[in-house]
């Protein structure tokens, strides 16, 4: 029997398609279904051409195939509005839900910071925070591992072309969810998030700034060491993740200036913001598969 866990992707947009391309290279996850709600959608046609089964009647349309196809993992790349229902229906059938929407009904997961914890607990719904969160929370966490962070602030600047209509219509959700992630996963007592959209052509690469205010004088050597180590951890699944400048120390302020280049699978390389989400989501699913293969966790029983 293959060690790979079988998966369904919900939402055949840019994110879903990019995720599918990454998944086809995975040693641990096998994409089986792509689910949409519009039979004429480009995304479903693409998925079909890439050789996976498609369903155009939403999550309800695949429920009957979950057990027969032994689907164990679902990725939701739709919207926060429909996520809760999707998750409930699939969790009931023993499918682990990886949430790429800002719904955040399950615990946040930022792979190099708390993935091990989430998999060991067999969280049935994990949320991938936001692109800005994936790019910055590892840095906040690296600093809070050295000493208490009173305040963590992140600024994500992304190209206009890489921001989809879902994010635009509810941009507050980005700032709110990211700020919570900075606190809950990054370890800052108070978090703040800012997003700036830049329409320059050619599109600019995703860049992120992290500012932390430490409670006491920062231990410069230790923080620098942990930040560099954390960058390497993120690079394991996002090779284009880069510390451009910093850490800079100014009183109790610690600042890092990051750039995220994507792999350019379906989305162009400048869209590091989308790439870091799909890469983190896949990395999360792979960890569940590895743990299941090592028998450190037991997936929900099936007849």
């Amino acid at each position, binding site marked *: 029997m293959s060690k790979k866990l079988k998966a369904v992707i919900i939402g055949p947009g840019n994110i879903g398609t990019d995720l599918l391309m990454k998944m086809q290279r995975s040693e641990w996850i096998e994409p089986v279904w792509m689910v949409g709600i519009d039979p004429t959608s480009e995304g479903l046609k693409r998925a079909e051409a890439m050789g996976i089964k498609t369903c155009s009647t939403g999550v309800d349309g695949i429920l009957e195939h979950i057990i027969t196809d032994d689907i164990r993992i679902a990725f939701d790349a739709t919207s926060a509005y429909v996520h809760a229902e999707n998750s409930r229906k699939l969790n009931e059938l023993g499918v682990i839900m990886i949430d790429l929407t800002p719904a955040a009904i399950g615990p946040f997961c930022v792979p190099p910071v708390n993935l091990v914890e989430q998999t060991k607990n067999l969280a049935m719904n994990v949320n991938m925070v936001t692109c800005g969160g994936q790019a910055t929370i590892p840095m906040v966490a690296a600093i809070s591992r050295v000493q208490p962070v009173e305040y963590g602030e992140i600024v994500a600047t992304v190209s206009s072309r890489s921001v989809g209509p879902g994010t635009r219509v509810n941009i*507050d959700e980005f700032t709110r969810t990211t700020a919570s992630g900075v606190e809950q996963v990054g370890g800052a007592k108070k978090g703040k998030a800012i997003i700036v*959209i830049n329409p320059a052509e050619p599109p600019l690469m995703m860049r992120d700034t992290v500012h932390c205010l430490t409670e006491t004088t920062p231990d410069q050597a230790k923080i620098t060491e942990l930040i560099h180590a954390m960058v390497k951890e993120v690079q394991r699944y996002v090779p284009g993740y880069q510390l451009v400048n910093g850490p800079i120390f100014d009183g109790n302020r610690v600042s890092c200036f990051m750039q995220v280049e994507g792999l350019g699978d379906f989305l162009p390389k400048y869209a590091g913001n989308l790439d870091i989400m799909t890469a983190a989501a896949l990395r999360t699913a792979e960890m569940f598969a590895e743990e299941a293969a090592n028998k450190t966790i037991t997936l929900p029983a099936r007849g």
Partner: protein
Amino acid sequence: MNLQGKKVTLHDMSLRDGMHAKQHQISIEEMVSIAKGLDEAGMPMIEVTHGDGLGGASVNYGFPAHSDEEYLKAVVPQMKQAKISALLLPGIGTVENLKMASDCGVTSIRVATHCTEADVSQQHIGLAAKMGMDTVGFLMMAHMVKPEKILEQAKLMVEYGANCIYATDSAGYMLPDDVTERIGLLRKELPKNIEVGFHGHHNLGMGIANSLAAIEAGANRIDGSVAGLGAGAGNTPLEVFCAVLDRMGVETGVDLFKVMDVAEDLVVPMMDHPVRVDRNALTLGYAGVYSSFLLFAKRAEEKYGISARDLLVELGRRGTVGGQEDMIEDLALTMAKEQGLI
């Protein structure tokens, strides 16, 4: 130019845009006394917020001396006739901030986006309109795209519920013809019940000329600030503008001598530095860079030894937009490394 008999609503920016020039450190007492002076002078609208709008308090833009809520609660109850407005930039401020401002008695909200990104303002404009506020769509850095694009984005904001649209010269880059084209097209194509406004910066010394061009092209709301206190070389200096409008027969309802006195007696003594077209402010206007970058570039120059002018020119070349203040230190570090300074 004949503007005789036109009516214009002036909107003072000294207590919001002026926060940039004061590194957001205006005291409550200063804020209240200036607002009262303006109220008494008949200024119909006054904006009170962090320079970067509601929720702007941050490492990135600067922590203010007091929260938006503290300023608003101090100023609003003191007003006899002036309406207090607040600025909100989606991506920085949220609907919670908007509700707080409304609870404090703010009746006009200005939702600002980069001139090509109006669709991030839907939830904020929608809510403000629903709450019955005077709801303004504020398209920043309007010099960067053609008038047709500004119109397209303005229509989105109107669809979300805005009752007034601004073309905003955040970089102080526009010349009068640029203003005429943009404001003229908005006035021609937007429904008659939608007001049109202009917000200028004085980086090329065009604050007054551009504002006059805006009125001629159909704008009926004009931003400025007493003594010009604002980002970069400041906004259109309102006392000067009032005198000019008076001479031209434009009705503003503002008492010229009283507004002059507020400028001279209250605002100028409070300035940390003369707000004028120095070489760096001039570079903003020349290179088309967001005006609030000025003091950040000056600080980066002091810290890393890269000239503020070089930084601003490069930021303009890269097409940076409002809100990208973090880019300034990042760029200064990169340039300092390249030049072997660090």
